[in-house]
Each structure stands twice: as structure tokens, then as C-alpha cells.
């Protein structure tokens, strides 16, 4: 068993080491400096190995420390509670809850697939030795960190060791109860956990864990020790059952039957993404189009993607219609609000930038365009011809703008009306600015996302983002919109600035797209 564990542990470390080396390659600027025979480089490999082992050691303690701090220390600190009994009380009940929620010795994972299916390691030895290692890690991590963190609450070393023993005992008892239960049945039971009864049980446990100490009652420390001793004794037959169970191989096979573990990470991620976008397709015989060529293609695309395009925009429109009506109603029937609203409308325009950023579905739309259409069509050479790219770009842009203008129109009409009803403005130009800048922002974000997609087409054939510029550009867009929220600038100033900026940007972006997209719109290698 030790030999099996040694092999599986080495395999896991190698797997992690290579993953680390691989991720180094994706750091911009580093790729060219790394040798081509990356995985054969001894120096790099040693470096990655040290990092992997360090990570393993840190993870033993760090996770436990975080767990104890967040789930026990923080609530105790918040309710100003002290004493070892409160600490151990919460710990015991959370351990019980943890055992109920996650009690599986067989866990999915690519490294397990490699070890058991490809390298034919003995499934039982593999499962048991790895679980033993896991229990050992848990025991050491828990005992040490409970002793360290528990000092704040005067938990003794014995208390820490007993707590760790309780955790390990529960982690032996619960999986033993599940042994031999088919995965489907386990999943069914897990789903049942979310039934009303189960949720109530979980809430009850949480309540006992947190509310009782607040009310001044906790399991006495001596009783805690007794509970730990009982759990350890009860774990003995469970360990026997775990060691004598014969169905590990079948259990693993069942675990791998989902299929994804059989494929490379790349194609697996692509598949997940593809399936999630294909699920967004809605298809019915009534969807037809009288258009032709690229307009026809785009028309059908829009119709088949109503879930993420029109329907979602309609929902947003309805929401904002209600909000605008509520605002107008408030102005009419609740005069005290007028002043506040008026001052917001005359200085708060920057925050609308963030709202408009959020209701614009540009990024989701372009990703759907890639996954459900361009991903395959870009392999056809006719589709990559400059004329074709620009025809489709124009058709798509028109559709996206039309969709995004729906909610924008409601806001653009609602705001000037609210401004009027909330007391008006000395500069009538402000009405126009509010109206026009909202509409222009909708057009701006539509153009922005579409042009970014066409100029930086970031995806490769596996639908992975391969162009760091794309991520940077999107983050910058988000940050600018986000920081605009807190700015208070007079609408007459900001609105005018926005108007000019949007018009210039849109013109420049379209110019750039028409000049450059035929060269940049292709599958990344």
C-alpha cells in the first residue's frame, strides 16, 4: 500500500509541477524566454517541484487556519464571546455538518483517472492510502491550527488534539455509511439534502452551533471530550468497513463515467463552454428570414438567441420602465423626494455610465457569436474575406444597437421627465443632454464591445481567450465605468463631454474596424 501511495503521490506532484510550468508559459513576455523543451529543463522542474511541495505543506495549515478564523473566531469576536467551551462547541457542530454535506472517500479528478484507469494502480490501495494521507493531513493541520488559533480562547493542547480526532473520526464514519451506495443514489440523496426537511436540519444545526453560545449555553468542555471519545470508538468499525470494502474500482469507474476526465483539459473546457452556449439556443419552425446572405445568417442568429438577446433586453426594459414610473410617481405624490432627485439628475450623470455598462450585454453576445457561429465559420475561407467580414460586422452591429436601445430609450425618456417633475433646470439644454447621452452611451457600449471583438478576436479553436489585450481592454472599460459611479459632475458639463467623446470614439472605432478587422478577425493559434 505504501508503494501505491508513493507512486500516486509522485504522480500528483508531477501533475501539479507540469501544470505550474504550463501556466508559466501563459505569462506574457515569459513565453519566449522559456526553453522549448520546458518540461525537460531540470532547473525549472526543480523550482516547480519545490513550489508544489511548499504549496502542499502550506495548504495543510492555511486552509484550516482560514476555516477556524472565518467560521469560529469571527462570529465569537462579533458576539464578544470567550472561553474554550464556546470555541469547541461551534467546532464540534460544524464538523458534524461537514460530515453530512461531504462524506465521500471517492472523489473525482483527472489525476485519479490517470492513476487508476491509465496506469492501472490498485483502486483499493489507491483510495485507502490517499484517504489515509488526507486524514493525516487533516489531523495534523487541525490539531496544530486549533492549538494556535484556540489559544485566543484558552483551548488546551489536549482540546486541540481531541478536536482533530473528532474531525478525523467523523470523516471515517460518514464515508463508511455511504460505502456501496451507487453514485446516482448518492447524488439523489445529496439533492434531497436541499429538500425543505434537509435545509431545516442544516439550519437547525447552524442555529445550535451559533445561537446557543450567544444565548449563553455551550457544550461543556468535559462533555466535548466524551463526545470525541465516543466518535473515535464509533470510527473503529467504520475503518474496518472502509478497509474491507471491495467495490473501489467500480466506484471510481462510475465516477469517471461522466467522460470529461477522458479528454484533455483544453477540449474539455471548450466542450463545457460550447454546451452552455448551445443551451442558450432556442429553436422553432417559425423562425425564418426573408433576407439573404450575411443578413440572413445574422437574422437567424438573433432569432435563435432571443434568450440572451431580445428577451433579456426586454426584461431589462420592463425593469427600467417600472423604475422610471416609480420615480415619476414619487415626484408627483411624494414632494420631499423632488429635491434629492433633482440634484442627482443634475450631477449624477457619471453613475449612469456604470448602469449603461451593466445593461449592455455586449460581452455575452460576442462570446455567443464566437462559440455558436464564428468558431466554426472562421475555418471557411470565404467567411474570412474582407467584404464578408465587414458585411456581417455591419449587420451584427445594427442588431446589437437595436437591442441595446430598447432599455436605453426608456431611461432616456424617463430621466428628462423626472427632471421636469422634480423641479426642472435653469438650462433647458440639460433635458436634451440627459436624453441624448443615455442613447449615445447605449450605442457607444454596443460599438465598443463589437469593435473590441472584431479587432482583438481573442479566442482560439478551443474557445480560450488567447489575447491578453482583450482581457485588459475589458477590465479597463469596467474600471472606468465603476469609478464613474462616485463622481459628481454637473450634467451640463459631463453630458456635453460624453456626447462629444461618444461621437468621436464611435467614428474612430468604426473607422478602425473597417480598416483593420479584415486582418484581425481570425482564429487565434
Amino acid at each position, binding site marked *: 500500500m505504501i508503494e501505491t501511495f508513493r507512486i500516486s503521490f509522485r504522480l500528483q506532484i508531477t501533475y501539479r509541477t507540469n501544470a505550474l510550468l504550463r501556466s508559466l508559459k501563459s505569462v506574457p513576455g515569459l513565453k519566449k524566454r522559456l526553453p*522549448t523543451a520546458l518540461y525537460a529543463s531540470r532547473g525549472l522542474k526543480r523550482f516547480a517541484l519545490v513550489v508544489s511541495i511548499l504549496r502542499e505543506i502550506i495548504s495543510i495549515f492555511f486552509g484550516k487556519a482560514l476555516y477556524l478564523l472565518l467560521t469560529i473566531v469571527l462570529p465569537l469576536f462579533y458576539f464578544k464571546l470567550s472561553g474554550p467551551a464556546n470555541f469547541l462547541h461551534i467546532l464540534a457542530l460544524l464538523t458534524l455538518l461537514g460530515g453530512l454535506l461531504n462524506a465521500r472517500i471517492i472523489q473525482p479528478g483527472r489525476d485519479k483517472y490517470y492513476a487508476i484507469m491509465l496506469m492501472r494502480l490498485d483502486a483499493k490501495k489507491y483510495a485507502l492510502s490517499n484517504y489515509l494521507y488526507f486524514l493525516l493531513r487533516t489531523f495534523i493541520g487541525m490539531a496544530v491550527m486549533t492549538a494556535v488559533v484556540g489559544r485566543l480562547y484558552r483551548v488546551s493542547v489536549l482540546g486541540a488534539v481531541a478536536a482533530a480526532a473528532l474531525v478525523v473520526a467523523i470523516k471515517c464514519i460518514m464515508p463508511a455509511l455511504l460505502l456501496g451506495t451507487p453514485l446516482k443514489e448518492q447524488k439523489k440523496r445529496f439533492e434531497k439534502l436541499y429538500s425543505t426537511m434537509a435545509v431545516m436540519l442544516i439550519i437547525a444545526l447552524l442555529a445550535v452551533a451559533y445561537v446557543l453560545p450567544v444565548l449563553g449555553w455551550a457544550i461543556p468542555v468535559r462533555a466535548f471530550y466524551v463526545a470525541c471519545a465516543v466518535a473515535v470508538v464509533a470510527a473503529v468499525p467504520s475503518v474496518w468497513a472502509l478497509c474491507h470494502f471491495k467495490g473501489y474500482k467500480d466506484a471510481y469507474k462510475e465516477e469517471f463515467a461522466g467522460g470529461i476526465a477522458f479528454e484533455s483539459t483544453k477540449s474539455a473546457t471548450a466542450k463545457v463552454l*460550447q454546451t452552455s452556449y*448551445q443551451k442558450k*439556443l432556442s*429553436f422553432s*419552425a417559425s423562425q425564418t428570414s426573408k433576407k*439573404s*446572405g*450575411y443578413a*440572413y*445568417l445574422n437574422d*437567424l*442568429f438573433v432569432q*435563435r*438567441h432571443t434568450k440572451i438577446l431580445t428577451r433579456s433586453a426586454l426584461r431589462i426594459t420592463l425593469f427600467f420602465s417600472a423604475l422610471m414610473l416609480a420615480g415619476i410617481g414619487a415626484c408627483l405624490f411624494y414632494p420631499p423626494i423632488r429635491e434629492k432627485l433633482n440634484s442627482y439628475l443634475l450631477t449624477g450623470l457619471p453613475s449612469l455610465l456604470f448602469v449603461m455598462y451593466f445593461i449592455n450585454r455586449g460581452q455575452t453576445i460576442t462570446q455567443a457569436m464566437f462559440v*455558436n*457561429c464564428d*468558431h*466554426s*465559420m472562421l*475555418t*471557411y*475561407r*470565404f467567411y*474570412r*474575406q474582407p467584404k*464578408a467580414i465587414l458585411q456581417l460586422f455591419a449587420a451584427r452591429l445594427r442588431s446589437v444597437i437595436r437591442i441595446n436601445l430598447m432599455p436605453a430609450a426608456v431611461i432616456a425618456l424617463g430621466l428628462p421627465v423626472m427632471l421636469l417633475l422634480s423641479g426642472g433646470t435653469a438650462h433647458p439644454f440639460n433635458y436634451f443632454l440627459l436624453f441624448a447621452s443615455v442613447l449615445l452611451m447605449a450605442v457607444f457600449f454596443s460599438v465598443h464591445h463589437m469593435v473590441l471583438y472584431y479587432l482583438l478576436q481573442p479566442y482560439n479553436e478551443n474557445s480560450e481567450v488567447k489575447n491578453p489585450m482583450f482581457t485588459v481592454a475589458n477590465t479597463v472599460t469596467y474600471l472606468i465605468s465603476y469609478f464613474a459611479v462616485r463622481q459628481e459632475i454637473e450634467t451640463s458639463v459631463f453630458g456635453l463631454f460624453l456626447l462629444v467623446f461618444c461621437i468621436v470614439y464611435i467614428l474612430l472605432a468604426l473607422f478602425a474596424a473597417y480598416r483593420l478587422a479584415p486582418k484581425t478577425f*481570425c*482564429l487565434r*493559434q
Partner: protein
Amino acid sequence: MKLYVQGLKKNFDEKQVLKGASFCFEQGHIYGLIGRNGAGKTTFFNCLNDDVKPDEGSFEVEENGQTRPLTAEDIGYVLSTPVVPEFLTAREFLKFFLDINRKQVPQPQPIDSYLDLMQIDEQDRDLLLKDYSHGMKNKMQLLVNFIANPPVLLLDEPLTSFDVVVADEMKQLLRQIKKDHIIIFSTHIMELALDLCDDIVILNQGVLQEIAKESLDNAEYKDKIIAALKEAGND
């Protein structure tokens, strides 16, 4: 018509995949492109189809005694993993394809007659392509390339996903259209190459080389091809 590939070079990082490959492909022939795993067959096709930019080299077409660069309209490429727009039905995909290729297909036939040709069942024609099997997607991909009728057809392992009956029909179809085309057919299946192709070209050590059949019978010819692949591999 002739297609000249001249001095084609392509490196990936430090790995030289194509090292100045040159060849002249002629109309009326089906060329079997054979190479060992990783020899660069797909890279060669990708360069021809402009999916990958070659580091050096040129592609030219000689027609009626005049030479000109190879254009997008000259090439049809059927990938080994078929790719079709998942959100369209077979009928819609063909309508779209015919719309935008009016120049190449000035007098299109009714859409159903094309689907009949590929034996796509009536009830499958209005299904989304995402629900098609691998083989059916491959049929669609092959079909649009037949419809566009480009003079040069690149086929990357196109018959392996078909059942034996369809594969045989496709072979017949390729034989029928070859007189007006240059067909380059990449495969790992030697029997298929010997059965279908007029000439065998091997891609090894980054260069293209024709293996002449001369007066050899199939078994001897096969040995000669394998010997050539091994010999070049040992260089």
C-alpha cells in the same frame, strides 16, 4: 491547370515543420498525401488555405499558360474534424452558402437535391446542425465544398467518419469530379490511398516527394512507400 508550391517553410518555435517543400500538382489527379504522425500534413493544408502564414514560400496557379497567385476562391478545405454553424439547420446553412457564393454557383439546384446527393434524411434536414452526428456534419462540410466547386480541393482524412456505403459513394463522387479539379487527399490509411489516388506524395522531413509507381504491383508499391517513409525518417 497546375498548382505550384514553391519553397514552403514553416517553423513553430524552434521546430522546423516545413523545410522548403516544393511540388507541382496537376488537374485531373487525386494526390494521396501520406506522412507519419506530426510530419506536418495539416500545417501544409493550413498554409495552403491561409489559416497559417508560412514563413517562406509561394503558391501559384498556372492556367491557360498564365501564372497567378492562389486566391481564396481556388481552395476548398474539408477538415478532419467537421465544423458547421451549430445554430443553423442543414437547409438554412445551404441557403446561406448558396446566397453568398452566387458568383461561383450562378445556377444553383434546389436545396433538397443537394441534400439528396449526400443522402441526408428528409426528417434531419430541418434539425439544427448541433444535433448532427460527426459523420453527418462531415457530409455537410464536404457538400458545401462540392457546391462551391473550387478547382483545388484539400481533404484531410475526410472518409474515416463515414459508414462503408457512404465512404464508397464519396469515392465514386471524387473520381467523377477529379477531371476538373486538383484533389489533395491526406490519409493514414494506405489501402484507401492506393485505391483512390492516382499519385502518392509523401511529406517527410519537411519536404514533399512523389513516389513513382512505375510498373510495381500494389504490394510492392506499398513496400516502396513505407521504405521511403522509414528511410527519410532515419536521416
